[in-house]
């Protein structure tokens, strides 16, 4: 235990630097996944079309082992940030896509009818009614994705370097105590980011729309919908 404390004291600046690198690798992966999955999920949900498509894309991405993607990247392009980002995006797309589709698709049709009856245009229905009602579930997906991503970011150390993984895969240099210390930082980062996004989730949830308890745990149950092949 005192070894662990000593490691933190002796390597504070190294850990800080690696943590920043971990977070930026994770943030880039999350950003790309959001750009790809969020608009497609929301759009498909808005059209109430493509449940088959969004569910199957999610399932296919889920079946891509992170290290396998990294290995293929290493074989094809060599050491590069692209390898790890590819793996992270594949991890983050399914929860974001599934949740944004399910959320928008599941908005109470009466609310949408009322909005149309009030003379809202299609775009307004989406931005003023469907999206606000969907944010809680969409954010649940983003939180899950961010936890997956942060827990997997250490594999970057195999794919071109960067972040706390550099310490975790280098036990000969940093010893077990270093591995454990860096691991604890990763776990803390994952919980911190999840907590932070949880606050955002609460902030964007319209007043009057209670946040279901089920959405607040770190990894929600896989939707039964995912079984529809």
């Amino acid at each position, binding site marked *: 235990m005192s070894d662990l404390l000593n490691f933190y004291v002796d390597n504070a600046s190294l850990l800080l630097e690696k943590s920043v690198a971990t977070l930026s690798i994770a943030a880039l992966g999350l950003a790309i996944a959001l750009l790809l999955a969020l608009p497609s999920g929301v759009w498909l949900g808005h059209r109430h079309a493509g449940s088959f498509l969004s569910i199957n894309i999610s399932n*296919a991405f889920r079946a891509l*082992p992170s290290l396998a993607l990294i290995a293929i990247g290493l074989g094809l392009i060599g050491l590069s940030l692209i390898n790890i980002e590819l793996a992270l995006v594949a991890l983050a797309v399914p929860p974001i896509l599934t949740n944004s589709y399910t959320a928008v698709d599941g908005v109470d049709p009466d609310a949408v009818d009322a909005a149309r009856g009030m003379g809202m245009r299609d775009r307004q229905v989406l931005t003023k009614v469907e999206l606000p009602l969907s944010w809680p579930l969409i954010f649940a997906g983003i939180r899950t994705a961010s936890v997956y991503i942060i827990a997997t970011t250490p594999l970057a150390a195999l794919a071109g370097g960067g972040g706390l993984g550099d310490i975790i895969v280098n036990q000969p240099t940093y010893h077990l105590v270093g591995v454990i210390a860096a691991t604890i930082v990763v776990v803390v980062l994952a919980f911190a980011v999840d907590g932070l996004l949880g606050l955002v989730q609460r902030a964007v949830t319209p007043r009057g729309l209670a946040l279901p308890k089920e959405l607040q745990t770190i*990894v929600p149950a896989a939707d039964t919908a*995912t079984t529809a092949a």
Partner: protein
Amino acid sequence: MIAAAAVLAQGGPVIPNFGRGDECARSNGKFCLHWFLDNFDNRFLPRVVEHIEMTLIAVSIGFVIAFSAALLVHRWPRGELWFANLASIFYTIPSIAYFQIMVAVTGIGWTTIEIALISYTLLILFRNTLTGLHGVPPETLDAAEGMGLTRRQMLTRVELPLAMPAIIAGVRVATVTTISLATVAAFITPLGLGAPIFSAIQTGANTDFIAAGVLAILLALIADLVIVVAQRLLSPWQRARGGAT
């Protein structure tokens, strides 16, 4: 190994395991099909078998633990948060670190790998079993009770069959996740499809990277498909109703 040592003894630069012939393999081409096919039986097939074993053991034991925990919690709901939080923590531990840390406790070998892999399956299997059990409509339970079913009969004849789709959805995600994490196990000892990958990180052999990567993806996709088919067979009423949504 002996052959490789003999080649090394003759001197000259040799890429490990690339002993014989093949121009592609010697120049470390992106993917040497010929070399891959020549070496499939001894270099890749055993790793595929190990990978399947690792996954089956982890998901089965994980299922027994998570399923029992879910049944207990179903009756005594207080334990739910406790188990879910414990299992959540495992989820945030990077696998490559977890395997190493477990080595310090249980040594290098199958036990260590399985303990780590099992811990990762628990959360998904637990939550999905519980979600399935909670999803049974109260009217259905009332009807069952009215028909005079005991608690045990209600569980085995009503609740579990109705929870089956959610449970299998959990097994499906747990299985593909385990196949993914099992590739990382080779970081501590060369077992499973991660073995050629970590070997290639040392040697730079592109064919190892791509062959093992593609095989791992294929394994995950096939496992996914097998479970979907099993799910269809195990809950025929869903098909009759036109699929779950």
